[in-house]
């Protein structure tokens, strides 16, 4: 009963268009005030202690690092390297975009940021080379999704924080699915290019490739700082995030010199603005999960699912459908923070691996980013490419289909995700 009241209230408040954070907070206040005896003062304290976890602080650091990288010329050099490697295939610039997105995803934790970084260079280049616009937009918007699957990933940090899972293990678990997805998107791109007879770039010699690699090596080294640092135990994930922010600052300002020192405060302010928005959702989501637990809602839903005899396979299908629908209307961080506290205990009772479950949710979020009416990647791509949203949504469908196949694969073949972290002894 109380579950119905809480969710109805939340849904109503959210549909009025007020910020997600405010709807979460007001739901909690209304419910506590009207239906329980919990002292309201405890709410204020929770607002501070809710985000008093060092793991959460990885989010602002990764955002800051991402912003330095986006404007620091790292993306451009990665693109040059990618083009030198795969540009000679049919639809070369499209293939390079997929490859460059995968590389950039390995240093950035956000999907829309990846679309901005790669898309703002690749889309104009593809237009100039005579590719049709929908092809370019489809490639960039969908490949940018890898930003949250290939570590580091802000969405994974959100999942780890709200379910107490290991960030390191999640990051490692994302590596193989990330590479697989890059391959699958690459194949789709090649197939589309082959059908359309799109141009290819001239082949590059190995010495040119080496040159391009050497120029982009400063950005690529960041992958080692983050993944290597966390895996070897040199840094905690939050420390790795802070290190990558400082490193990204140094290469953007002093090595590549693409960012002026006078621009740094702007980047800081912009990152703070974005992080504060996400942290504010987290704070209120913590409150929300506090009343869910207080009312024992996850337990009763779990019991209900177990009694209904849905089983693991049925549950995973249901979760996928639920998340895909929510993904078309909301932004990933809010979805994870609202659903994870409810879905996670059920998944545990059904014997689903927490890391596998996390990656599956992440892939769902990726798809949510390219499905209308609300898909962050679509908006960003439509902004850069100056093409209407409806046309953009039509443009992505071949890649969307590929990602749905990929989602099925990830959902029902858990070994793809769990093999690497297990082999490395992280879970």
């Amino acid at each position, binding site marked *: 009963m109380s579950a119905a009241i809480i969710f109805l209230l939340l849904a109503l408040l959210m549909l009025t268009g007020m910020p997600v954070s405010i709807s979460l907070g007001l739901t909690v206040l209304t419910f506590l005030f009207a239906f329980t005896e919990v002292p309201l003062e405890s709410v204020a304290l929770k607002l*501070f202690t809710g985000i008093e976890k060092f793991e959460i602080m990885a989010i602002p650091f990764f955002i800051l690092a991402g912003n330095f990288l986006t404007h620091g010329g790292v993306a451009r050099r990665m693109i040059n390297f990618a083009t030198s490697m795969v540009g000679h295939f049919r639809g070369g610039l499209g293939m390079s975009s997929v490859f460059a997105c995968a590389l950039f995803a390995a240093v950035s934790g956000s999907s829309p940021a990846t679309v901005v970084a790669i898309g703002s260079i690749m889309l104009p280049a593809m237009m100039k080379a005579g590719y049709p616009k929908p092809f370019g937009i489809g490639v960039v918007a969908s490949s940018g999704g890898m930003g949250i699957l290939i570590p580091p990933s802000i969405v994974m940090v959100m999942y780890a924080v709200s379910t107490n899972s290991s960030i390191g293990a999640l990051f490692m678990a994302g590596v193989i699915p990330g590479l697989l997805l890059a391959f699958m998107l690459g194949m789709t791109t090649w197939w589309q290019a082959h059908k359309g007879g799109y141009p290819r770039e001239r082949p590059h010699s190995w010495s040119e490739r080496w040159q391009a690699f050497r120029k982009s090596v400063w950005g690529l080294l960041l992958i080692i700082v983050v993944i290597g640092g966390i895996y070897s135990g040199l840094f905690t994930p939050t420390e790795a995030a802070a290190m990558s922010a400082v490193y990204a600052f140094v290469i953007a300002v002093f090595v590549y010199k693409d960012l002026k020192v006078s621009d740094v405060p702007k980047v800081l302010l912009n990152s*703070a603005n974005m992080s*504060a928005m996400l942290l504010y959702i987290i704070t209120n989501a913590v409150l929300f999960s506090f009343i869910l637990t207080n009312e024992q809602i996850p337990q009763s839903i779990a019991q209900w699912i177990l009694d209904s005899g849905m089983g693991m396979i049925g549950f995973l299908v249901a979760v996928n459908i639920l998340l895909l629908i929510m993904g078309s209307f909301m932004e990933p961080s809010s979805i994870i923070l609202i659903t994870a506290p409810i879905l996670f205990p059920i998944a545990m009772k059904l014997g689903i691996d927490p890391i596998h479950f996390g990656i599956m949710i992440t892939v769902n979020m990726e798809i949510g980013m390219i499905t209308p009416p*609300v898909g962050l990647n679509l908006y960003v791509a439509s902004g850069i490419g100056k093409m209407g949203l409806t046309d953009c949504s039509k443009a992505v469908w071949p890649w969307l289909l590929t990602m749905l196949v990929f989602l099925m694969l990830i959902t029902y073949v858990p070994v793809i995700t769990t093999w690497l972290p297990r082999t490395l002894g992280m879970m």
Partner: protein
Amino acid sequence: MKILDHLEEWLITFLMGAATLIIFVSVLHRYASGYAIPGLQDWLISLNVSWAQELCIIMFVWMAKFGAAYGVRTGIHVGVDVLINRLEDRTRGKFIVFGLLAGALFTGIVGSLGAHFVWENGAHYSIFKFLGIDTGDLYEGPTTPDLEWPTWIVYSAIPLGSFLMCFRFLQVTVGFIRSGELPHHDHGHVDGIEEEKVPVDTNPYGMDDNLHPHDIKHHRIVERERTGDGK
């Protein structure tokens, strides 16, 4: 008012930068003090940086509270606006005002609760002591574990940040009722494919998406961009 705006921006910019540096230095310290460089090592070991983590958390919580207030002014907070963006201008306007006032209500309540909490947990004691008034049996309040700062100072981010946010919500409401405009940070800032260099303050959350409500002027802006004049 301008001063408040700048103060807010400086504060969160500073907190963001400083927290990053603190963690960076504390990690460097951890590894640098492992090398046996005579003199330097002893000096490094004598420095205690165990408080870095706590300070970083405090700074980020402060940044989150004041940044959220700044976010109201820049209009960055995401919502589910697909539905209301399909409504008539007038009806949508009512929903927008309702949403903004709900924000003001929530932050106002939280600010008051926070202020009460801070007052009871040390602020009352400290202020009375400072003023030389008999503190009687007032509670002195706890301190943080590593830095040993009084928690009431640390926690005062809740009332201060929330009241500022409440004020920003009201400010935006008044602005919206007067002019029909919502704060749009960079409408269409990633602008056009001719421009290869992305502006430094591009924000993926700042696009013309359905995560933010369209204001009354929205259609005109879209129209203007479509026809290509102005900007």
